[in-house]
């Protein structure tokens, strides 16, 4: 289980969880997960539906507080920090269910993220020139995600795939050190997937960021990942290089066998 970690242990982990557990009533959705994410690496988290992948993300980004366990980010204990503090420290996250500002324009959705990253928070007497700078940056992200034509539409009017793209544009606008991507291609039509993939690949190629991806599409996971972590019923089943995971017998019997059923459903 720790074979891959040893290989990359030269670089210190940017994020580390220590026996992280969250229970709802008696049910532990995430149980004793100890996971280290290597700085500037690409880690994918896979597992069947209900394995606790999104719950783990909620713990990492601060939407949920753990029942027990610790989260360390850049050597600091962030277990008790609220989500806005984590975002300011460089943990950005995209959501699996689209989670945008429905009645604000597409441009405004992104501009708000740009504004937050720039640290302009309590300026109540606007400087329009400043606004324009944020807008220009938001426009270039619109261009990148090919949403320019929808610039002024309220986000609620976007098609599902476009909302996903907006979601990613907002995450990119935050310019985080650690990106948590929760199924970025879910619900996107097949011809649009390559564009999103290209954006993710681009971020990876820049090499200055750490990416943690939750994904069901195995070919995408194998193509992008430096490491893969497998969650199963809330527990960390395995963590290693793609090759090691594919050859892991426990993973094979417990999960990958069931994986293809899962993929067939979707």
């Amino acid at each position: 289980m720790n074979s891959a970690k040893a290989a990359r242990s030269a670089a210190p982990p940017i994020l580390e969880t220590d026996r992280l557990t969250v229970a709802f009533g008696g049910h532990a959705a995430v149980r004793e997960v100890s996971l280290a994410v290597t700085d500037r690496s690409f880690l994918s988290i896979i597992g069947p539906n209900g394995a606790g992948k999104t719950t783990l993300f909620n713990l990492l980004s601060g939407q949920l507080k753990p029942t027990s366990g610790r989260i360390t980010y850049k050597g600091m204990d962030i277990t008790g920090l609220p989500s806005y503090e984590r975002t300011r420290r460089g943990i950005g996250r995209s959501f699996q269910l689209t989670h945008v500002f429905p009645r604000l324009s597409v441009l405004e959705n992104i501009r708000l993220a740009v504004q937050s990253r720039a640290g302009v928070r309590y300026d109540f007497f606007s400087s329009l020139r400043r606004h324009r700078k944020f807008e220009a940056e938001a426009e270039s992200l619109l261009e990148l995600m090919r949403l320019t034509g929808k610039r002024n539409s309220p986000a609620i009017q976007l098609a599902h795939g476009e909302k996903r793209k907006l979601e990613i544009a907002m995450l990119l606008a935050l310019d985080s050190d650690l990106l948590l991507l929760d199924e970025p291609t879910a619900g996107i039509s097949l011809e649009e997937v390559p564009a999103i993939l290209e954006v993710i690949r681009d971020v990876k190629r820049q090499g200055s960021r750490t990416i943690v991806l939750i994904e069901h599409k195995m070919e995408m996971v194998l193509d992008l990942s430096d490491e893969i972590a497998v969650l199963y019923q809330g527990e960390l089943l395995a963590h290693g290089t793609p090759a090691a995971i594919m050859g892991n017998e426990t993973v094979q019997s417990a999960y990958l066998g069931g994986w293809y059923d899962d993929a067939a459903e979707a």
Partner: protein
Amino acid sequence: MSRTPLQPRSEPAAPPKRARSVMGRLSALQGRSSRTHNVVVLLLFVLLAALPAVSDSRSLFILLTQVFILAVFAMSYDLLLGFTGIVSFGHAMFFGLGAYSTGLFLSRFEATLPMLLLSVIAGMALAAALSYLVGVLSLRLKSHFYAMLTLAFAGLLLVAAEKWRSLTKGSDGFTFAIPEPLKDRATLYLVCLCTLAAVYVALRRFTRSPLGSVLQAIRENEQRTESLGYRIVPYKIAASVVAGAAASISGSLYVLTLRFVNTTVFSMDMTLNALLMTIIGGVGTLYGAVIGAAVIEWAHQLLTDLAGVHPIFERWIIFFGLLYIVVVLVFPSGIAGTCASWLSSMRRRRQPEDPEEERP
């Protein structure tokens, strides 16, 4: 952060020409609509300001003065309800604070213009302090706590105004003299108009500032706003404080026109007035609140006049209920909101979809 933002690597830094022309046209369109707004507002202001020169209808002045004052009150409520998505059931307390502050200053001290100004500032400071207190106590909780706490505080102030007779003379209230220059109806009318204009410009600027844009994000999706790195509570408190201070101004002006103040300024009816005006006019636009104030006050006047025709019209609250139902049915997002969406859909129909705007 000093690092440059993410740039598309595979594409050149400058957007392709075609896309830029679309963008340019769209931003020109936006600029145009903002300019239209400015022209309309300025024109309206000039027309209303010129009114005393052409008319001396006393009832018209009284009606419009009342509209201006309540419009300020409704706009302050719109800041909470329409822009931040906070419901308050006690907005009257800020109105009342301004009202009593002006009434007490002018009755206890000399009725001069500087004293009036001082009383308005004192009212605003009191209202800001109180709304800060209520906000700190309740805005980190779920939204209905703010509604309940404002209701409780408004009730508390109403009882205090009734019982502290040595200061307020209870529900009988008291009359007071107003500064000499304001005794002229037309002057008072202009003062109220200018106040409305100033508050409108200030609040519009506030809602379009970086802080104001975050308020609207909070209204839309609180959790997402937080995950973008914004701490929610200070924003809500800021909205509450600004709304409270603005409401206090309207309270000061209100008693200035009456030269009298009693406990009704703290009543639930005042809050309901603001709520109705904001919803009927259209939330989240500011000018919707002005339209709402005009419609309600005008309807009120009309119904009062009709009381001579048949006594049923004295029960104007019945007709307000009907008006409210009709407006909600016909203008689901308020008069301003629904008209705006009519206009934009009409414009879209007239101009067939720009082929360049379609995605490649």
